[in-house]
């Protein structure tokens, strides 16, 4: 058939350019065909266009053809027309309004297959107006005798409720009565619809709680029925329906004793009897566990549920391990102690080679950190950081900082942790955390000497990690005198001269690896050192004056202000108080205060004159 020919030609193109050429020609031919009033091969043309569209080429010129095809009396043309509409149109386009009438007519067509096309399209792309217009028709179809149509109408109703929540009222009675249908497709649709109605409008919960006994019966039927080949997946009878019903039971049982009671036995039965050796059974078991944890269930049942999750954590199948961690994440806040029991296994999963499993393990591990386990957990987390996949690193560093701040057993431990992260993963530390880190360091006054020494030594071997650079520069500026003294209690002594320090700061200023924020930090540090050193004031002065004509406006402004300090207010320079927290402040003879730089969100230092009078 014609589209196969076109597809062959496209596939034989050897380069992207050749393919583009072929497609341009084909599209021109298709366009020409569309313009002709009649055409035997109309559906073939549209099919060609949809193929081209999938490859990523523009196809909007086909929108009107879809509209025309949908209006055709031929099933083959309607079919591809509706498909085209779903691919090429969305409710924002004018052309989509034109199909409303066709949909309306087709919804009451004598052929269920044509009705089905209309239902499918409405559920995919029905606009609010279309939904409002056609809702009564959908409601009528929910009561139609044909299960094929009923199940589609149910999902259509879900779409309508999402678009216009108030219309939920219209579907509530029919939704409830659909639960007595025997057809699984219809039941499935009904459960999805009721779920949507309850989630959209909590007012519906009371009404649908009355359906709990029916839902329990449905589940019992599925769980205890003999082998039913129709719906069987790996020995489980219609696991998809079971999962849906369990979810609905969760919503209905939440915060409601009576409903929870009514489903307790069933949940216990499913939890103990489901064979979870295959995926289908595991899917059902997990929903059961989550439902048990979310409703007001007996404590014995809760313990059973958490243990099931714990068992799955040890499963060989990675999918199962992944899912069990996802489930544990959902209950870690409410059932913290229970999940803590599995901390060892979870921490082990940090070493799994699967990045998805690692991600889940990281989330859970961070959630399980507490005052009692902070030291051992941090060891594991820091170890993880060194083998952490790149996409998780910045999240890991933020999580580590948060945990450290909440549970640090001592200031020294806290500073060590911060330093470790900055030194080993400074490149992944988020910019926004830098001001906080500086704050924490400044508060730990007995450790200033230790901190500045450690940071300086890290800096001289690597200036590429921006967060490390920024924190280190700030510390050198503030505590440069401690650095130059050379000795420090807890580190081997190292001789650091003023030139050494200025060398590294100037290198940062000049390096192409340094971000504008980092260069700002370096310049300010250099300036601050002018009050802490004795021999190299001229060197500092010359650096500052060079940057007075720097192309970076922020840096330039800073340098100009610092220059002014040297030139006009040299005698005041020692009185300058460097205060990171204050706002713009104008006082005294000159204002050198600056706001936070907008593009770098850096926590700049502010200069404020002490009032001399």
């Amino acid at each position, binding site marked *: 058939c014609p589209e*196969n020919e076109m*597809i062959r030609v496209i596939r034989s193109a050897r380069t992207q350019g050749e393919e583009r050429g072929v497609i341009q020609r084909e599209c021109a031919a298709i366009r020409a065909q569309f313009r002709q009033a009649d055409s035997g091969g109309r559906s073939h043309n549209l099919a060609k266009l*949809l*193929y081209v*569209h*999938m490859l*990523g080429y*523009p*196809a909007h010129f086909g929108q009107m053809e879809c509209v025309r095809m949908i209006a055709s009396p*031929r*099933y*083959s043309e309607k*079919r*591809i027309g509706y*498909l085209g509409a779903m691919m090429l149109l969305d409710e924002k386009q004018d052309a989509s309004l034109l199909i409303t009438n066709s949909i309306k007519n087709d919804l009451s067509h004598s*052929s269920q*297959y044509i009705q089905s096309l209309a*239902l*499918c399209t409405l*559920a*995919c*792309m029905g606009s609010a107006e279309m939904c409002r217009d056609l809702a009564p028709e959908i409601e009528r179809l929910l009561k139609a005798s044909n299960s*094929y149509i009923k*199940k*589609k109408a149910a*999902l*259509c109703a*879900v*779409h309508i409720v999402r678009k216009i929540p108030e219309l939920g009222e219209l579907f509530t009675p029919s939704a409830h009565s659909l639960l007595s249908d025997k057809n*699984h*497709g219809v039941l*499935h649709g009904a459960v*999805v619809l009721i779920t949507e109605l309850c989630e959209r409008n909590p007012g519906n919960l009371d009404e649908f709680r009355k359906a709990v006994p029916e839902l329990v019966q449905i589940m019992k039927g599925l769980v205890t029925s003999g082998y039913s080949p*129709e*719906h*069987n*997946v*790996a020995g489980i009878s*219609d*696991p*998809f*329906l079971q*999962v849906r019903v369990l979810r609905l039971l969760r919503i209905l049982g939440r915060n409601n004793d009576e409903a929870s009671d009514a489903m307790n036995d069933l949940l216990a039965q499913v939890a103990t009897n489901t064979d979870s050796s295959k*995926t*289908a059974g595991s*899917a059902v078991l*997990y929903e059961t566990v989550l439902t048990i944890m979310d409703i007001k269930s007996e404590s014995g049942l809760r313990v059973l549920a958490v243990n099931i999750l714990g068992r799955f954590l040890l499963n060989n199948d*990675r*999918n199962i*391990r*992944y*899912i069990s961690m*996802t489930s544990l994440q959902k209950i870690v806040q409410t059932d913290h102690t229970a999940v803590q029991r599995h901390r060892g296994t979870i921490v082990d999963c940090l070493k799994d*080679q*699967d*990045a*998805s*499993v690692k*991600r889940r393990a990281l989330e859970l591990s961070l959630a399980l950190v507490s005052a009692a386990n902070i030291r051992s957990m941090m060891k594991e987390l820091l170890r993880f950081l060194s083998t952490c996949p790149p*996409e998780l690193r910045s999240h890991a560093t933020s999580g580590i900082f948060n945990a450290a701040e909440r549970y640090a057993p001592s200031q020294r431990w806290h500073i060590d942790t911060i330093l470790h992260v900055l030194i080993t993963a400074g490149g992944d530390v988020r910019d926004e955390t830098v001001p906080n880190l500086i704050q924490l360091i400044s508060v730990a006054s007995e450790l200033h000497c230790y901190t500045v020494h450690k940071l300086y030594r890290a800096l001289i071997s690597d200036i590429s990690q921006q967060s490390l650079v920024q924190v280190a520069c700030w510390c050198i500026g503030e505590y440069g005198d401690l650095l130059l003294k050379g000795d420090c209690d807890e580190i081997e002594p190292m001789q650091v001269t003023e030139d050494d320090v200025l060398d590294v700061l100037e290198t940062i200023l000049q390096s192409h690896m340094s971000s504008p924020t980092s260069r700002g930090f370096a310049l300010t540090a250099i300036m601050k050192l002018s009050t802490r050193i004795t021999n190299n004031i001229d060197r500092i002065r010359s650096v500052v004056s060079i940057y007075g004509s720097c192309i970076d406006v922020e840096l330039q402004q800073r340098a100009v202000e610092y220059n002014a300090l040297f030139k006009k207010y040299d005698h005041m320079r020692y009185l300058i108080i460097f205060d990171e927290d204050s706002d713009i402040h104008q006082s005294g003879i000159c204002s050198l205060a600056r706001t936070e730089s907008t593009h770098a969100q850096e926590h700049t230092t502010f200069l404020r004159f002490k009032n001399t009078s």
Partner: protein
Amino acid sequence: MIKAILIFNNHGKPRLIRFYQYFAEDMQQQIIRETFHLVSKRDDNVCNFLEGGSLIGGSDYKLIYRHYATLYFVFCVDSSESELGILDLIQVSVIIVNVCFHVQVFVETLDKCFENVCELDLIFHMDKVHYILQEVVMGGMVLETNMNEIVAQVELQNRMEKSEGGLSAAPARAVSAVKNMNLPEIPRNINIGDINIKVPSLSPF
């Protein structure tokens, strides 16, 4: 909700794309590229779930995928879907597509492995695969999972299409030729991985 179903080959070439949420065309292609990039990095023995794509739904969305020979089947879902359920659904859908094709397309070697949908089938019958999938997923929601039901409905719809407007001579000849062929028997039961299916007995063509 299922936000998208993406089928592409080992080189990232799209074979079937269905979005259930509106995205502009260039965004769609970007999503395809990003998804391929994420999925193709995965080893064969890791789990079938992926997070970390940013384009479709922010943090509340996952990629659930299966890799069959030259094709990736990827369902992009939000947290309202059961991950294991969708994993099974992918497998079920693949089998359904296979069965539907092997009824329609008269292939001599029906002992082809049912696990592998032939990529060429997808390429040359993309619209038909859409129609099949439409019986499984509608509006981003799971519609039907009973394989017998789905395969039967697909066949009836295809017949309706063929019977319309009169067949030209060639297909009619093909039809009678097929009736006279000794078609090898379609297996009655298919066992793949976790799933056992009883193949529906379809009326002779």
